[in-house]
């Protein structure tokens, strides 16, 4: 499913693909193995297709479990508590216990609510978030689909989410839910724009919307070539907007429990509530992964693995080296993402919640102009120093 990259802007594709070693291509080896058993290429491909999808779905859910546990443990540590400790060692089974509880809870649809929209809302929130995992790369070939419009696909999918939030808020027939839904929609729409502009600056540098190309463009000189040094402002803008999109604490107005009970989730219980819960945490992990892809060099090790292999006099194409490279790539991606998740959790206990007018002020009067200036400066730098800022 590795499609050749094409740029939305029809700009000349100047990627460093040729310079980068092919890395571990599980798909090709899997299909070759099954063709060796006498299967047709189509059948082998069909056999392969569900595997990465299932794997990513499992990874996303496990990521949420880890995230919930980290959230509770780090929150506890920040507040000098212990946190969950009786469900499993150090409380690692606590998220599973929470999930099981939600699974067995009664699924209530309020009498005056719109049953169809009420049910559709959480589904519409969760599905785009899971779909966005399509484009998250864990290695050169370790992603479900290297679509050419990768990062743009994520931006467009994430703008489906506010529809689901508004839908569930409106269908609950409850003033708190409605207010929460409206706030969620307003917030998501306002922060989408600076987010897209920040991404655009990165895309301009890498001449591609594909997440793989964006990472490859940062892989020249290890930590020094990561986008965070060339796009520090963009990084901050992207991180703030990602927090707002995930409704994390400085921006958790849609579910502000002191004012709105639980916002759009007020009337939800059981599995429908669990879908919201899952959606918000998958979204947080996803945003952290994308920050690491866009700004922190994705699967890149702080020192390029090619250099390390060269120093150790190992051929980069050797199977063992490829395996180690792929594992290091996965570990690095996840590590970077979870460092950002840690930062998000720490921010949660550091910053107070902003008011709705402060939120919109920050979005429209601060982030949007800064993002525009950032884009212009990036364009100017790209023209002035094409070697450094992607010619």
């Amino acid at each position, binding site marked *: 499913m590795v499609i050749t990259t094409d740029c939305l802007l029809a700009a000349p594709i100047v990627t460093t693909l040729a310079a980068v070693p092919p890395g571990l291509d599980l798909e090709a080896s899997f299909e070759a193995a099954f063709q060796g058993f006498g299967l047709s290429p189509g059948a082998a491909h069909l056999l392969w297709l569900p595997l990465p999808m299932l794997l990513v779905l499992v990874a996303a859910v496990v990521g949420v479990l880890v995230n919930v546990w980290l959230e509770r443990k780090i929150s506890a540590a920040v507040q000098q508590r*212990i946190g969950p400790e009786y469900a499993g060692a150090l409380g690692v089974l606590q998220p599973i216990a929470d999930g099981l509880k939600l699974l067995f809870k009664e699924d209530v649809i309020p009498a005056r609510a719109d049953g169809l929209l009420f049910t559709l809302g959480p589904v519409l929130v969760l599905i785009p978030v899971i779909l966005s995992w399509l484009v998250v790369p864990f290695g050169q070939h370790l992603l479900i689909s290297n679509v050419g419009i990768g990062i743009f696909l994520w931006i467009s999918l994430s703008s489906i989410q506010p529809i689901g939030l508004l839908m569930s808020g409106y269908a609950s027939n409850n003033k708190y839910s409605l207010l929460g839904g409206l706030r969620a929609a307003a917030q998501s729409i306002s922060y989408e724009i600076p987010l897209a502009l920040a991404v655009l600056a990165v895309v301009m540098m890498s001449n591609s919307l594909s997440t793989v190309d964006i990472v490859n463009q940062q892989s020249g000189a290890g930590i020094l070539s990561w986008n965070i040094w060339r796009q520090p402002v963009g990084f901050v803008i992207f991180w703030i907007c990602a927090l707002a999109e995930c409704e994390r604490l400085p921006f958790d107005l849609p579910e502000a429990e002191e004012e709105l009970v639980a916002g759009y989730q007020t009337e939800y219980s059981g599995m429908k509530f669990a879908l919201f819960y899952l959606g918000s945490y998958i979204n947080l992990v996803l945003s952290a992964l994308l920050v690491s892809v866009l700004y922190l060099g994705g699967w890149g090790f702080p020192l390029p693995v090619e250099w390390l292999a060269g120093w150790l006099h190992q051929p980069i194409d050797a199977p063992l080296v490829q395996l180690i490279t792929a594992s290091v790539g996965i570990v690095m991606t996840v590590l970077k993402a979870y460092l950002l998740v840690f930062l998000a959790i720490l921010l949660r206990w*550091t910053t107070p919640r902003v008011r709705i007018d402060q939120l919109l002020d920050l979005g429209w009067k601060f982030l949007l102009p800064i993002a525009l200036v950032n884009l212009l400066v990036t364009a100017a730098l790209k023209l002035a120093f094409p070697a450094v800022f992607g010619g």
Partner: protein
Amino acid sequence: MFGFLKKVADYTRDAVGASQYLAQGLAVTFDHLRRRPVTVQYPYEKLIPSERYRGRIHYEFDKCIACEVCVRVCPINLPVVDWVMNKATKKKELRNYSIDFGVCIFCGNCVEYCPTNCLSMTEEYELAAFDRHSLNYDNIALGRLPTSVTSDPAVIALRELAYLPKGEMDPHGVPDTSPRAGQLPQALLDSWAESEAAAPASTTTAAPQEQG
């Protein structure tokens, strides 16, 4: 032109200031990560209530003379004293006594004014019940003694901060024998007596200060 530039400069200064405050806050929360938990793991660990703790009221039926002083000093006349006059002996005969702890505010006035000391305050504070009417204690229930935290084998008793040795902040792992900071009243009196015995001529000018 310069007005606009000044606005931009002010705006930038505000943004930089805001990010500085944010970094300061993050430093505080990050520093708390390495500190020990200060929580008491409640059902397994409990704090020892202080000596003057005003918990559930204890009542001794046999001492009571049914004078109803407790009712008069109670802010809401809560204790119910059920007595009849025995015409033959011309004395009050107490039949029942009850206090509703769902309504009591534990002010301790009744304990303070009881002429025969039949009322006293215990260290019991776990009064949760499924039905508020079960908090209406009669004289039998009022006569029960609470389980002491220190003698309960299922509970690790922890000392409150004021009862810990000097400089100790965490009650976990402090041995029972280590004395609390400062002196108990009796030790204070003893040291007074000693100092007066040592210097009978001089007046008690320098009373020993309580340590800590």
